[in-house]
């Protein structure tokens, strides 16, 4: 039976009603994914914003612009094939555990005020003698 719609565009498609075959798209019928990085304004870091499926890098940029830069908050885009990203695993997150203990890397670990005060105090005492 021909499908009748109140949408004239749908009527023009000349479609039949009825169920689809079980698997219309083949399981391997995909474009690979690209990870997208966007820079909000000049001077900012590029930030990961999501992915697009694309047949190549050039198309990935076109689609990334449509997907992540529709409202002017972007001046530059990078795309990287997901397959090319090398990442740490959350299972090994403990490799970062010891970093908060490394306070010798932090400025707050270096307190000189006490020493200076003590030094000034002893100088004052010496002068008073």
């Amino acid at each position, binding site marked *: 039976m021909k499908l009748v719609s109140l949408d004239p*565009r749908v009527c023009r498609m000349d479609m039949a009603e009825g169920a689809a075959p*079980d698997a219309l798209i083949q399981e391997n019928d995909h474009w*690979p994914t690209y990870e997208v990085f966007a820079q909000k304004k000049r001077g900012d870091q590029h930030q990961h914003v999501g*992915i697009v499926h694309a047949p*190549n890098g050039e*198309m990935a940029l076109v689609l990334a612009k449509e*997907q992540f830069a529709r409202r002017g908050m972007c001046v530059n885009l990078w795309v990287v094939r997901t397959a090319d990203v090398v990442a740490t695993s959350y299972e090994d997150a403990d490799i970062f555990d010891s970093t908060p203990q490394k306070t010798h890397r932090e400025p707050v670990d270096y307190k000189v005020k006490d020493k200076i005060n003590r030094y000034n105090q002893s100088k004052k005492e010496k002068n008073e003698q």
Partner: protein
Amino acid sequence: MYGGGYLPDDQKRHLPIAEDPDKLAAFETRIDRGDKVEPQDWMPTEYRKQLIRMIEQHAHSEIIGALPEGTWITRAPGFKRKMAIMAKVQDEIGHAQLLYAAAETLGKTREAMINDLINGKSKYSNVFNYPAETWSDIAVIGFLIDAAAIVNQTLNAKGSYGPYCRALERICYEEAFHLKQGHDAFVALATGTERSRSELQAALNRWWKPIMHFFGPSDKASVHSEKLMRWKVKMASNDDMRNQFLDMYVPRIWELDLTLPDPELRKDSDTGVWLFGDPDWNEFFEVIKGNGPCNAERLAVRRWAEEKGEWVKRALRPRNEIYVTPLA
């Protein structure tokens, strides 16, 4: 926009899956702490399954939701409204892309999801199985359906699955524009001529039932949804979301001297809870089963797009590409 009425799998059909109790306990502790779950983390099978189902339904709803609105792009009243509705429809398709990507990180390919939409295995929001008969319907959809979607999506953005939360944050940002342009179109009709008012009222009457269905039937007593809430897959009960929606938006309809076709609709001044008549849940279940006024058309249009676009995808497809799950 999105169907807030998340439709869980029929739990009776399969037995609960036994999980490693230590891993499960550690997982739940992290959820309680407010940690986000990332794709590579261990997660209960049921958590993964329900999330795929929910995000996938959400994605399909964005795609199918663009169809009733798309109907009126060619006939939008005036240039500005045409530009607005085109931008909104493009946003909705973009939302679907973000959501498919989030679901993909859980291990279901986009192709499998689209297949399941077209062959009817997956669900999408029931409201989109109703036709947009007039431009007034578009005003009602843009204002009230998107408003309902925002209630749902803002809550879900605080859920436990990282990729879904990130997608929703982007989505919510754009939904603010959808709601605003919908309200603008709605108010324009409500404050226009006698005829525009009565057309809007008629559209409101047509859409009230599907809007009440939007958040799904009451699930307060459901053990299943209790677990999903514990895991922060679901962030509020269907009733609570519906109540929040009614509380925010019924006054904005009534202030324009429009009416709603439910004589029992009122706010209980003691409890602050909105009371309403039976919105015909039988109809809701009938439409889910595929017997709504537009189910067949929606799927046929989606299938047509897939069939007609297939050669482009095939022609451009790189050879020997091995599928890699997106990272985040």
